[in-house]
């Protein structure tokens, strides 16, 4: 056996060891197995690749974008896709490719912030309601029901109308409307574990509710929640784009994809690229998140691998 394969084999043996020598090795081995399972799902890997590309695009936007996304150039307005303007130019002569590249930052910003706000709120409300039950459960879940009863986009519209249009307000509005399903999922999962023997055992060992919820219940809810959040990313992108399209999200001249499709609408018949290019970007990224979510479900959700 030659040396490189020796190293690879040894690393794999270390990862798959039945007798891990440290907590790190045990966790690494677990992660490796999950990764291997994930790798078998080609479409999920494709989804992940697209999202990694999106992150790279956002990180290196200044290097990748050939033009300034905001600078107008009226002599070059409404140019069809060509070698100098890969995806054409819009109604004020801005390069659409550059705008899409810079717009990836906004898209990531929106979904990142929504996930950071909505997922923890949802998991906290759900696990607390599920673990304690009784009065706390009733209060928290009726609150959740109230938020669930609002149509998502309409409530977002109301919030934006109250707080004023702008990307931050759009993010707050989307986050406020997207946590209730997470709370429901977390509560449902919590109720199935609440009286499990391993929870009773740790309770008998003197653990308080905070330790039980954060250390024992949340890790078990996390996997199905990650899957759900990933699958919801597509919806969040669409809602953000929808708000942008209605003029209530990112404000001009920000290169937000939804706002771009909105302005392109006026030219849809003669200059198709204005609306097609950002629309395609939204479509591809949403699809990528859905594929990734499906792949993650196979890895993380214990009920799907039977």
């Amino acid at each position, binding site marked *: 056996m030659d040396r490189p394969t020796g190293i690879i084999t040894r690393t794999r043996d270390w990862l798959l060891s039945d*007798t891990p020598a440290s907590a790190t090795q*045990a966790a690494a081995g677990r992660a490796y197995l999950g990764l291997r399972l994930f790798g078998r799902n080609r479409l999920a890997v494709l989804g992940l690749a697209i999202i990694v590309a999106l992150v790279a695009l956002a990180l290196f936007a200044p290097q990748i974008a050939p033009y300034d996304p905001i600078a107008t150039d009226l002599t070059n307005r409404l140019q069809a896709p060509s070698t100098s303007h890969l995806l054409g130019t819009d109604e004020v002569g801005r390069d659409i490719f550059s705008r899409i590249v810079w717009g990836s930052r906004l898209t990531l910003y929106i979904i990142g912030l929504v996930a950071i706000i909505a997922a923890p709120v949802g998991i906290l409300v759900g696990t607390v309601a599920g673990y304690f039950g009784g009065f706390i459960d009733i209060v928290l879940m009726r609150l959740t029901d109230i938020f669930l009863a609002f149509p998502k986009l309409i409530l977002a519209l109301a919030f934006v109308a109250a707080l004023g249009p702008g990307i931050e307000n759009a993010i707050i509005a989307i986050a406020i409307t997207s946590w209730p399903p997470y709370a429901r999922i977390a509560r449902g999962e919590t109720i199935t574990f609440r009286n*499990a023997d*391993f929870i009773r*055992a740790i309770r008998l060992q003197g653990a308080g509710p905070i330790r039980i919820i954060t250390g024992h219940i949340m890790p078990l809810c996390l996997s199905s929640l990650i899957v759900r959040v990933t699958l919801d990313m597509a919806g969040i992108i669409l809602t953000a784009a929808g708000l942008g399209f209605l003029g209530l999200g990112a404000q001009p001249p920000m290169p937000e994809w939804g706002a771009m499709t909105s302005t392109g609408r006026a030219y849809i018949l003669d200059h198709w690229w204005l609306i097609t290019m950002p629309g395609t970007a939204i479509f591809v990224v949403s699809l990528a998140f859905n594929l990734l979510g499906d792949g993650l479900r196979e890895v993380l959700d214990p009920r799907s691998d039977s």
Partner: protein
Amino acid sequence: MSAPMLMIEALGIVFGHGAARNRALQEVSFSVPQGGSFGLVGESGSGKSTVLNCIAGLLDRWTGTIKVADQVLQGRRKLSFSRQVQMVFQDPYASLHPRHTVDRTLREPLAIHRLGDASRRVVQVLREVGLGPQFRFRYPHQLSGGQRQRVAIARALILEPSLLLLDEPTSALDVSIQAEVLNLLQDIRTQRHLTYLLVSHDLAVVSHMCDQLAVMCQGVIVETISREQLQSGEISHPYTGQLLLAGKGYDRAAIDAFQDFLPTSQQ
């Protein structure tokens, strides 16, 4: 003889309301001496595990008196209670957290009770239950049923309790593993001078493990006898005789002769 480690008087509990009202325990009384081993036997639904849950504080709203080491238990259990009483659950597949390594499962009680020297204690208690250090960082799914139950026993022992509640500790295991685990429990009791309260439906297990046993049926103790009485067949209640017969294996004629001792007997 010293004061009893565990004393239970007139323990009762009611589940449900109205038509679904079920008196799961009625007037249950027994006591276990310091260092003793007491068995609760009965069929499924006879309330034997409920007794353990009442003692452990996993159920409340019971009536009667429970005393552990001369202290009356009431309301929420204090933190020090965990260092006095621990429990081993029936199903080793359900009693270990699926996402925690053995190490984490054993360390957590030490962290809760702020006991230092965690690493040494973990290795030591694992050795005591017959598991080498190579098991320390495994996840439960990398362990067999018997190994899992050993980890569950280690978890109960790591807080150095004086009373161990055993809820059918071997009924979910293969017959060959059952004997190993029972012998392990016996050895630990001798070494650590523990008091056991063992719940089982298996008279053979109880007579192997316990000095004294109580037979439960429909939430009531029908008979309390010593191991010697059981082995010599000195039993007074027909239900005990029926349990004894059932434990000897399947016999069509014997099963047909069985009777329900109370009107709402479960199968």
